[in-house]
């Protein structure tokens, strides 16, 4: 089994991941209703430029432009049969930007389907994830990052598919939100403790949280997660705050300076790998890099 992240964490207290891809794609002109992952095939140079922008900003780890590249989601664009190829291309592009000195984690997002709803089976999900991670491994990914998950059934199926079909290190992160009583839950009702238990059961190598929250809430979530799980590496990828609509435009209000100033607290809470999700840019990563280098 490849263990590039675990090895890197032997000599480094904290690793820096990358920032948002979706936000970058939108800045390059991606419109709603278009398949951003398909850009790996048709607008390769722009995807490579995004990957490079994070390497240049100081990321030790970059992801791949494959978040929604599972056959279930790709079917909406009549691209289901291209799933493996798109994932392979996504990993190849990030590999090219990362070279041998940086780590590439293949991004795997949710399918958007709920097993309980009855419109997809556990086997359907397993097959879709197995195909996706196989493509990512073939394209040269060092590990798999299953992210933005909210359902334990889907997340554990994805981890199993990655473990059973590749030799890669596997991370799986959940999105939590503050529930009525003040604690954190995923939208499917799982607590942080439920999530950590489930990840241990499927021997996930790296746990953590991404999206849905700015860095303050993320720090709270990581602190709770670390109290439950003392050993596994934790990755935290906060949004640049919660999206707000100003004059019809979506804005994320946490600037690179704000996120950098709060980075030490996130690390102190127990995060080993930090980066950004929606609304974060290479500038955010560069600012966080400056902080990490002093730790």
């Amino acid at each position: 089994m490849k263990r590039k992240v675990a090895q890197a964490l032997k000599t480094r207290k904290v690793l820096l991941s990358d920032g948002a891809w979706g936000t970058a794609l939108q800045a390059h002109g991606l419109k709603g209703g278009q398949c951003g992952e398909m850009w790996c095939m048709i607008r390769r140079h722009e995807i490579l430029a995004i990957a490079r922008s994070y390497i240049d900003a100081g990321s030790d780890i970059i992801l791949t432009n494959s978040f929604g590249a599972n056959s279930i989601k790709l079917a909406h664009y009549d691209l289901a049969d291209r799933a493996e190829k798109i994932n392979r291309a996504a990993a190849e592009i990030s590999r090219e930007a990362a070279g041998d000195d940086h780590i590439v984690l293949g991004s795997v997002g949710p399918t958007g389907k709920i097993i309980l709803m009855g419109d997809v089976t556990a086997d359907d999900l397993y097959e879709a994830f197995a195909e996706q991670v196989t493509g990512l491994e073939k394209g040269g990914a060092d590990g798999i990052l299953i992210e933005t998950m909210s359902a334990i059934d889907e997340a554990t199926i994805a981890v199993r598919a990655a473990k059973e079909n590749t030799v890669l290190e596997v991370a799986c992160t959940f999105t939590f939100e503050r529930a009525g009583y003040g604690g954190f839950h995923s939208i499917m009702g799982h607590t942080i403790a439920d999530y950590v238990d489930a990840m241990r059961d499927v021997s996930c190598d790296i746990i953590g949280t991404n999206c849905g929250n700015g860095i303050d809430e993320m720090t709270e979530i990581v602190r709770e997660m670390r109290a439950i799980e003392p050993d596994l590496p934790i990755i935290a990828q906060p949004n640049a705050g919660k999206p707000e609509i100003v004059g019809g435009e979506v804005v994320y209000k946490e600037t690179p300076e704000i996120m950098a100033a709060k980075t030490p607290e996130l690390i102190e809470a127990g995060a080993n790998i930090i980066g950004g999700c929606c609304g974060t840019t290479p500038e955010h990563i560069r600012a966080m890099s400056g902080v990490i280098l002093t730790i």
Partner: protein
Amino acid sequence: MEEILTQIALCIERGKINLESPYPPDMKGQPGADELTKQAIEQEIAPGKILSDALVPGMQVVGEKFAKGEVYIPDLLMSAKAMNASMEHLKPFFESGEVKTRGVFIIGTVQGDLHDIGKNLVGMVVKGGGWEVIDLGVDVSTEKFIGALDQNPGAAVGLSALLTTTMPNMENIVKSIKEKYPDTKVIIGGAPINESYAEKIGADAYYPDPQGAVNFLNSTV
């Protein structure tokens, strides 16, 4: 209220579909919404009363708990499944016209957006509120919404979007609907949406949860 109607309401609130369903664990082995609704009809309780005094209040309790963050998506889904099991028995009475819905609600995820979880949840809860729900699916164009309104004059409309990039499409759809049918009530929802956005694009309402949509719709009839 008849005891059996209270029981049906509880089955819907707790997501107890039928006798065989193992969920929720503390109601295992008990009859569910399916059997009890059939019984209620056999006892000649008016189907309209079953709808208004069992299905609607059952779904309302879980809808309100969801809005408060006390229960989550799976709870709402199980409740909707139990409600659908009851609805199956009421179907013939809807078809014969003996039971009337409160109105028609047309819902869809706007053009360019393929996310359907939020849209489906709203559809289920509105249906549980006693409305006929016409689900146009995802990636729905202005023409499709207008077409559905042509066929269902007086219907209310719900628009869903998860992506920040598809929000502008929502604005276009609202404008087109209001141009052709100025009296149509249009509700919008989705993660990036808020009340001020609803106001800006001329929608009648925004709610962060399905029950808010039901309460608004009920207030319009």
